[in-house]
């Protein structure tokens, strides 16, 4: 991390990145809602080479009972990477990193979902990363939000997510795995586009105050692009392309 010498050219003189994108371009994103029959809600996202499946159960009874809250429903999130999702087999037990990502995704979704309508219940979000290529937490968050809407959980707004970062001294949108490894900073952002509120913001790396502001702006713009794709995924399923 931080100014390590890169063996590959991360950004050439024409402003083209290592995978052929421009600095303000996201990878190809496709989302499909309602892909699982047995879950109450589900979504599948392909975010560049990331492939993530999300299933939702709930609202339903809380087990163990002592976890339930008489005032509100609770949200439980499990982010899990398949052993085959990375180049070297990952042990399937939850790692420290997965526990952290589960927690940040839960906290990024909580401002949007209105679980106070369902006291004494739980909504379970299961995120399975089938293939990882940098930026899985953002992709997972975007898919989880589509799956929650598909499950009919009341939400104040969708949560869109996208990362931005600093690569070769330039602020870029949607950092991929190579840029994350060799770049200088990585900033995942979760954003509610209609309420204009940020629900997730992490930063790994060093940025000056100016760069930080620019990085947030670039990331938020990326979230707005992701939001359009989320919208399309839901209207494809529910309105048969005929939205508005």
């Amino acid at each position, binding site marked *: 991390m931080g100014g390590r010498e890169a063996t590959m050219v991360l950004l050439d003189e024409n402003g083209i990145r290592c995978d052929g994108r421009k600095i303000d371009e996201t990878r190809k994103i496709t989302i499909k809602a309602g892909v699982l029959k047995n879950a109450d809600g589900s979504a599948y996202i392909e975010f560049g080479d990331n492939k993530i499946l999300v299933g939702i159960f709930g609202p339903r009874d809380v087990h163990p009972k002592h976890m339930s809250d008489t005032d509100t429903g609770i949200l439980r999130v499990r982010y899990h990477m398949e052993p085959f999702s990375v180049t070297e087999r990952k042990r399937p037990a939850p790692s420290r990193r997965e526990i952290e990502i589960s927690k940040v995704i839960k906290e990024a979704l909580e401002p949007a979902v209105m679980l106070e309508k369902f006291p004494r219940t739980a909504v379970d979000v299961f995120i399975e990363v089938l293939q990882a290529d940098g930026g899985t937490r953002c992709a997972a968050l975007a898919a989880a939000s589509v799956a929650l*809407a598909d*499950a009919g959980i009341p939400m104040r*707004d969708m949560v869109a997510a996208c990362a931005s970062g600093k690569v070769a001294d330039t602020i870029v949108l949607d950092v991929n795995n190579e840029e994350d490894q060799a770049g200088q900073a990585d900033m995942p952002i979760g954003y509610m586009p209609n309420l204009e509120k940020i629900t997730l913001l992490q930063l790994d790396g060093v940025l000056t105050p100016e760069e930080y502001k620019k990085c947030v702006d670039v990331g938020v713009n990326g979230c707005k692009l992701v939001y359009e794709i989320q919208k399309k995924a839901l209207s494809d399923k529910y309105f048969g392309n005929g939205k508005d």
Partner: protein
Amino acid sequence: MENKRKYVIPGDLVTTGPFRPEQNVVLEGKKIISTSIGITEIYDDSVRVISLTGKYIPKIDDLVIGKVISHTSLSWELDINSCYAGFLPAQDVFGRDFSAHADELSSKLKTGDLVAARIANFDRTRDPLITISDRDLGKIDSGSLVKISPSKVPRLIGKRGSMIQMIEQATNAAVTIGQNGWVVISCESPEGLLKAKKAIQMVNEKAHVANLTDQVKEMLESKGES
């Protein structure tokens, strides 16, 4: 007042102005925002979104179909296809002079029995209280259970009951629709039963299609000839 319907997803602006927010909408500042995937309905003074997805949430006075899952010496517990279990007190069935010593609950309703019931009381602090002491309520002795998505129940009923009346007339079946998405069909003839079942499943799958009533009618009539 223009009553234009619009498709919305969570976070979408439904309208602004002095409206009363009803189902599936929330007031954020001056904006009324949808909280669900659905179709907007704007009335003279209120706004609501008809949700196209989601689990059944009990509402007082709803007719539901429940399945007995267990009983204690004082009450039954019913699965009503919701996140909460229905609570049916024994007094409701045995009457005022119910005695926990003398009366055996399983003599009236056993685990696995289907019951047509009404939500008598429900609030966020308690599980829904249900009652069967009313006309047309109580244990269901015969019929076939079909499970559909609770959000599609209004579609199955249709405008002023048009859809369900049509299915009933075409098949000679008696259909009891629970608001929780469970439907019981009873019919003298097996063909009518199968046809009614098929029609109901068709409504469940094609709820978003515009002229569904005609399509269902066509299906009912075409099968009748063969």
